[in-house]
């Protein structure tokens, strides 16, 4: 069972996404700030990280940058999931090593398709 780390600070989105992801058969761990996200990524070593940008304590960009600096952790695909639709933000995310950038709101089907494709790709890479 693939494990997904959900980094999100909105309570209702967490609730919806948890149902969505767990319903699709993933093991989900949730953290709601940047520092916890980094800690959890190192401790738990998920198969994929869904990362919001606007986060307390440490923003998503910084989390992404930190995780991508580590030789092992950087292999974990990161999908940025943000309400920010600015081109510069998308560009920055890719520059920092994020695998994808999804603008909220997103259709559950589409999100699950993407997650699945990254997890498959990841397995192929291993």
């Amino acid at each position: 069972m693939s494990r997904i780390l959900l980094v999100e600070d909105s309570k209702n989105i967490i609730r919806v996404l948890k149902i969505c992801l767990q319903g699709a058969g993933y093991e989900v761990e949730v953290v709601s700030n940047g520092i916890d996200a980094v800690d959890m990524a190192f401790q738990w070593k998920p198969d994929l990280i869904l990362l919001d940008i606007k986060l307390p304590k440490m923003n998503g960009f910084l989390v992404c940058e930190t995780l991508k600096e580590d030789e092992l952790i950087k292999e974990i695909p990161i999908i940025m999931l943000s309400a920010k639709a600015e081109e510069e933000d998308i560009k920055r995310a890719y520059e920092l090593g994020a695998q994808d950038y999804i603008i909220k709101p997103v259709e559950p089907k589409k999100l699950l398709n993407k997650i699945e494709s990254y997890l498959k790709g990841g397995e192929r890479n291993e």
Partner: protein
Amino acid sequence: MKKNFSLKTKILFGYMAIIMIIIVLVIWSINNFMRLNKAIDAIMEENYRSVIAAEEMREAVERQDSAQLIFIFGQEKKALDIFQANKLEFTKNLARAEDNITIEGEENIITTINKEYQEYLSMFLDLRVILEEDNEEMVQNYYLNEIIPQFEDVKSGIRDLLIINQDHMKSAQQNANNNAMQAIYSTIVISIVVVLLALVFGFYISNIIIRPIKELTEKAKDIAEGDLEQTIDISKNDEIGQLASEFNSMSRSLKDYEDMNVNKLISEKSKSDAIVRSISNPLVVTDKKNRIILINPRAEELFELEEDKVIKTHFLEVIKEEDIFSLIDRTLKTGEGQSSSDNNLLSFNRDGKDFYFRVTTNPVLDDNNNTNLVIVLFEDVTHLKEVDQMKSEFVSTVSHEFRTPLTSMNMSASMLLEGNLGKVNEEQVELLEVIKEDCERLNNLVDDLLDLSKIESGKIDLQFNEVDIDRLFDASLRPFKEQANDKGIELMIKGKVDGLKAYGDLNKITWVISNLIGNALRYTDEGDSIKLSAERKGHKIHLSVEDTGAGIPKSYQNKIFDKFMRVGSDKDKDTGSGLGLAISKEIIEAHGGRIWVDSKEGEGSTFTFTLKRPK
């Protein structure tokens, strides 16, 4: 007492004096000539006649002597005639000499001559007596011993007369010579004196005239050089004095006039100075050579300068801002005002706070429309910039805050609709779809609000490039192809667009066309068509999106480019924000183009906009 003579009188006076001197000289000369003449006359009158008389007398007495000899030799009658005739001649001449006694001693000589001559005559009588006695020897003796000596005595008297007169003639000549020499010398002396006097008068008169004129000239020069404090101190009442007084009144008037103008200028200058100083924005004025000629207190503060130290210094030496200088330079060259763009504001960091200034340059034109000065105004836009920042932060925050709940709502509705979480009935599906559609609508509204706020705040950055219409249409159509197919609407490019080019921002124009296609799709049904076309018209290119949809009622046609204006409230499936056309209009106008609609209700609409062609 003041002299009241005019210059003319003075000159005449001087001339009169010189004429008087010349008259004196002439009289003196005439006097000398007359003296000379008199001396010559004296010679003629006093001596010459006496000399002639003496010569005549000597001749007469010598003929009488001959007559006596003729008498002795017997020719008595002839001898007596000659004797008597010459006696008469002698007496006549003696009388002449007597009448002309002029020299001292002359009278004695004549008396002696007369006495000797009477003796000589009486001796002739004695001779005649002796001859009658016929004593030839006695006659001869008497003649030789008595008459000859007496004859010599007469002659000697005559010689004395001659000598005395000749001597006197010589002395008279000497006298005349002396007089002539004296006349020459005195004339020379007097002439020299007259010439000197004339010179002195000349100098004096010309000085009288020239000196004040010189003074006038000097003062006039000073006035010409701008020193209007000149007055001429000439108390004379002549023409020069009048000229001087007129000159003084002229220079006074000039000074009054100048004072008036200077006062006016000073008041104007202090007025403009006060205005410049009171301007709360920093301001710098530069001249043709880009030197600073004015800087107001706010600008001194801003650039941390002191006006006195930077005046007449080149702008770049003082304010090292190439961007501002290029604006000044362009204004100087083109004579047109310039302004720094919003992306190129002048920024300062003072006390940890950022300040932003928009720089505007304006030319000051002279009479010939040449740029004389450039006014550089620094407009403090820090506040605007802050507001702008606040606005975009606000919009960004709001949109984020909106999107988060929208996301959870949308996802929830989607997941329920998918039916993975349990079966939903028909009514439940309908309700969930309502939720989903309105979520989408709200989301679009947030997107458009963000776009519009960016455009309106001037934040939109147009990247001008050559745009291939071919490529533009392709990029705009592609995302709609599936949707159009699904709805059974024909979506195509009408006519040939190969080679047509526009000048603009590809992404923004794509956005506009996409928006127009999206609108058209919303108002068209199965069997309708949407056609894109492009046409070159002069320097512009016209791009159109034509549909065969519902069309727009006339009453709406003017308003559809306004914000939140939507046509057809019956279109309940519509998820548009009502901002698309407003944004399109902003974008096209930012390109310098125009957008409009031609539409007939029930027949369809054609949206057309213009763009520039590449140069």
